[in-house]
């Protein structure tokens, strides 16, 4: 009896294995953090690529073949990202990668994809170094940290009329990169940076650092990092009676921030790459699909970008007639008219469509400022 069951089971595995090798499937991979501290953003990316793939299949661009999204979890961990990248390159049916989210993950992973001539387009990694590695297979649809950090600094100086700031970063390539850029721009314009400190991601208690910062009496605290620490910092600052305004980057601009910081989030700012989805005329169809498919789910910051990135990749696969070796060359000259406007890439693979918007937390929501 047990033998029979195990034979049947083996058979099932074989059948499942065969199904995977279906030649009529063109796979596009999504790699991002589906579990871990910033899983909310990764889960949003997964939903976005699935919508894009479904639409492509419905339109029937590939005639007898079908696209399939395959999802990989890098847990926002560079080590995990490398092992995910090795898994991806070992599957010959994968034609390109959308991801990763974290710059710290994208940079090492992109080197592996380069060895196998697989194209990676990131919707979210904003560290400038990613596209400065001299790799031909790396593209980026989002605006980089150097643009974002200085845009934030200019906004703080010009619009908020702030003269002195303290800066905190989370020691990751992303958070520290953006904080350094903010610092450079702020100091260039002859304003004062009172302190510059790093914190550990995953820590919960920042009161010691905030107590020290309180003695400098900054008007504003800039944080380079992601929402989990940004939320705790804002909350603990209020508890210590530190009344500075907080300002952070796109990694912090998730509704999760407001959940963690609670009422302490009121009046704090974040910057976000691109123009808000609600202001994009062409994004309406996507937003409607998203809302009807996932009712009650908040749109996460990279969802529209992931959708656009998936569309660009799918378009490139179709236009090159499914020839992996031509996709990178095709993308280098592409002019893609999508929901973010016209996307084309410079020599490094960075998008030429760079824009930043600023949001302020008000009544438990992020409100668009400029």
């Amino acid at each position, binding site marked *: 009896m047990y033998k029979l069951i195990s034979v049947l089971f083996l058979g099932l595995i074989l059948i499942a294995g065969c199904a995977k090798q279906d030649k009529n499937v063109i796979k596009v991979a999504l790699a991002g953090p589906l*579990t*871990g*501290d910033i*899983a*909310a953003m990764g889960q949003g990316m997964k939903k976005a690529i699935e919508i894009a793939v479904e639409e492509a299949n419905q339109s029937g661009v590939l005639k007898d073949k079908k696209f399939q999204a395959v999802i990989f979890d890098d847990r926002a961990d560079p080590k995990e990202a490398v092992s995910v990248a090795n898994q991806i390159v070992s599957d010959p049916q994968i034609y390109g990668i959308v991801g990763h989210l974290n710059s710290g993950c994208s940079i090492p992973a992109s080197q592996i994809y380069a060895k196998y001539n697989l194209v990676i387009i990131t919707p979210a990694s904003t560290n400038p170094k990613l596209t400065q590695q001299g790799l031909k297979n790396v593209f980026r649809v989002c605006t980089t940290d150097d643009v974002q950090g200085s845009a934030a600094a200019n906004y703080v100086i010009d619009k908020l009329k702030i003269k002195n700031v303290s800066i905190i970063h989370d*020691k990751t390539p992303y958070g520290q990169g953006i904080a350094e850029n903010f610092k450079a721009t702020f100091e260039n314009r002859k304003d004062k940076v009172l302190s510059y*400190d*790093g*914190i*550990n991601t*995953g*820590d*919960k*208690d*920042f*009161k*010691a*650092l905030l*107590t*020290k910062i*309180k*003695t400098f009496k900054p008007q504003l605290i800039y944080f380079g990092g992601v929402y*989990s620490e940004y*939320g*705790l910092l804002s*909350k603990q600052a209020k*508890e*210590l*009676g530190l009344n500075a305004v907080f300002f952070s980057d796109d990694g912090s601009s998730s509704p*999760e921030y407001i*959940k*963690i*910081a*609670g*009422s302490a989030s009121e009046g704090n700012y974040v910057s976000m790459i691109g123009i808000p989805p609600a202001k994009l005329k062409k994004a309406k169809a996507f937003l409607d699909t998203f809302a009807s498919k996932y009712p009650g789910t908040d749109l996460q910051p990279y969802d529209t970008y992931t959708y656009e990135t998936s569309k660009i990749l799918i378009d490139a696969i179709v236009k090159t007639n499914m020839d992996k070796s031509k996709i990178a060359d095709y993308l280098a000259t592409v002019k893609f008219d999508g929901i973010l406007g016209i996307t084309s890439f410079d020599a490094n693979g960075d998008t030429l469509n760079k824009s930043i918007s600023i949001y302020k937390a008000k009544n438990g929501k992020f409100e668009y400022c400029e």
Partner: protein
Amino acid sequence: MFIQQLINGLTLGSIYALIALGYTMVYGVLLMINFAHSEIFMIGAYIGLWALTAIPAFASFTITGFIITFLVVLLFSGLLAVSVEKLAYKPLRQAPRLSPLISAIGVSIVLQNLIMLFVSNQSMPLPEFKTTRYQIFSAEVDTLQIFIFCFSIALMLLLNLFISKTKFGKAMRATAHSHSVSQLMGINSSSMIAMVFFIGGALGGIAGMLNGMYYGSIKYNMGFFPGIKAFTAAVLGGIGNVKGAMLGGFLLGLIETFSAGYISSQNKDVITFCVLILMLVFKPTGILGENVTEKV
């Protein structure tokens, strides 16, 4: 600033001390490091959130609601720790010392993933507590901090009394000293071990609840860092020694806070663990480690 840092450090330290007690008591009795303890801490916070939100009468934050919530947390996390012991450690009592350790790591992964899959993989906010802030020499302290500190101290004093003055405490100490001899004296060492797990788990669960209240949100992986730190605190104070764990907890909280506040916040863990290494080099048993006769 000094007083403010002192307050920050003591609040942090009292949570570390409460968790460290669970590590040290189990080590005292079984000579085993219970890595699943940080997950009991995490689940304690979830039980607390559940009690606060699921039972409408508690949500109003009345004193009785609060007391009942804490009793619920205490009971359930204690029972959880006992069942972990019965399921994962007891069958391995005669096995080599490495086996229960690995079993503990397994339990920790299972518990964390259970919460992640069946409760939420996102942070869950606790209801915001209305606190009053006081100013002491330009330092801010709120009622929650005072409550956490006093409550932890009270629990530790109670535990100390229990271990040194009651019959059960005496039996526990005897079991820690030698399982076989205490059994010959008519002590049921198996139930003593269960009791140790219950007390350790209950304190860990309460620490989780306090941690959640203090930081405002809880998450399935919240146990990892405090768990490692509390384990460090237990080693610093002398693992196996109850007073050592309390001392170690407060000491670690203060070292961490002061090194972040006065030296460098990005290197505070480096500094903390350097202190630990120095401690182990010059006094391998920890601060109060030599006190062998009173292990539990």
